[in-house]
């Protein structure tokens, strides 16, 4: 394992760069999409509501691999510039956005309705009440699970290996197939994944514990 880490350090670091880049891009994209669709799901507007629910249910219930492969195999016929990295990142973004929409919705719904009503009766518009009263309270519930979604993103970005996306898993497979030291390579790759995911998931557990002690309302 040490010999793989030392001998193939540059490839592994290159793979980690792609993994982190893909996860960060997908995080930003899925946060934006996720918040928009969460707003749709809770909005009083019937048609937005239906669109939001359909989006969330469809993409939560289809495997990430199917979504990513769709962007890798089918979409390049229409958009020829779509390589494995881009297709995988788009797939990750869409898949994760459905989960983030659910998280954000649950966070917002955990804020008592009275808060919204009180804000509205004090003369705030719906969006103002959302922005200044409800969302700041919801954030404490949402942030730890968003952190866990990011950990999932780093892990799930390994589907890029299916699409020649140059991520850590892809590099690991290349090394394994050239050196034939499969166990050592996968252990080294696993170690590098843990370096990325473990600190974050322990930090989120800490945040969850700390914030659950202080009363929100």
């Amino acid at each position, binding site marked *: 394992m040490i010999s793989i880490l030392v001998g193939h350090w540059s490839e592994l670091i290159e793979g980690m760069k792609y993994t982190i880049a893909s996860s960060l891009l997908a995080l930003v994209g899925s946060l934006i999409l996720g918040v928009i669709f969460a707003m749709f799901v809770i909005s009083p507007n019937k048609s937005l509501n239906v669109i939001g629910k359909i989006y969330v249910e469809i993409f939560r*219930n*289809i495997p990430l*691999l199917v979504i990513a492969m769709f962007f890798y195999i089918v979409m390049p016929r229409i958009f020829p510039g779509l390589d494995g990295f881009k297709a995988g990142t788009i797939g990750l973004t869409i898949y994760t956005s459905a989960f983030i929409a659910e998280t954000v919705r649950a966070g917002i719904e955990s804020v008592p309705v009275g808060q919204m009503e009180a804000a509205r009766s004090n003369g705030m518009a719906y969006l103002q009440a959302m922005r200044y009263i409800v969302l700041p309270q919801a954030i404490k519930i949402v942030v730890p699970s968003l952190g866990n979604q990011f950990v999932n993103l780093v892990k799930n970005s390994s589907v890029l290996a299916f699409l020649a996306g140059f991520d850590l898993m892809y590099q690991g497979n290349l090394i394994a197939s050239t050196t*034939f030291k499969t166990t050592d390579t*996968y252990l080294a790759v696993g170690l590098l994944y*843990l370096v990325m*995911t*473990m600190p974050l*998931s322990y930090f989120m557990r800490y945040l969850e514990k700390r914030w659950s002690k202080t009363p929100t309302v």
Partner: protein
Amino acid sequence: MQNFIDAYSWINLRFLLEGMWVTIYVSAISVVLSFIIGAVLGLIRYMKIKYLSAVIGLIIDIIRNLPLLLIIFFMYFGLPSTFGIRLNTVTAAIVALTVFESAMLAEIIRGGIQSISGGQMEAARSNGLTYLQAMWYIILPQAFRNMVPPIVSQFVSLVKDSSLATIILLPELMYHSQIIYGQNTNYMIPMFVAMAFLYFVVCFLLSQLSKALARRLN
């Protein structure tokens, strides 16, 4: 349109359904095995036995923070080269999914046990039950009710995640549809639609079941 009609011939549809059957049974066997292993691990982690609980906790955290794909590769390619254990695709897929899912379920089960208030245990103990008796007859039955919805959700994840085992050529839904559109690229879009639809139906029904159970238990 003609592509869709041709692609959905009876032979192709039957082939997809055969793949779906493999998807479901591999996931079902894995969830049952993971539940048993996860229950033991979760209980040990909950009971705070010196050293043992800490070690098991660390192993659970490590597995939970690794990509499932890596575990699949390890079981299929790593084991034979180092330990001389060669698993066939179905076994390798089941073992990998079970290892990954046991860690997930161990945490759910530990959370479920922790959610039962301490008063229950104290009342049972003061009525003369031993610790293990109190656990088995009083705590676990109540905890189990809380755990059923998240376990069903984990089953949904398993059905989706089992698609990753295409890479070791597990003959499941994703792999079978790849074979069909590999023979005729005109069938690509129809196959993606069919595959997405089949996964969606299974996962959507299961997640509705999980929601309904959660509502009933509350």
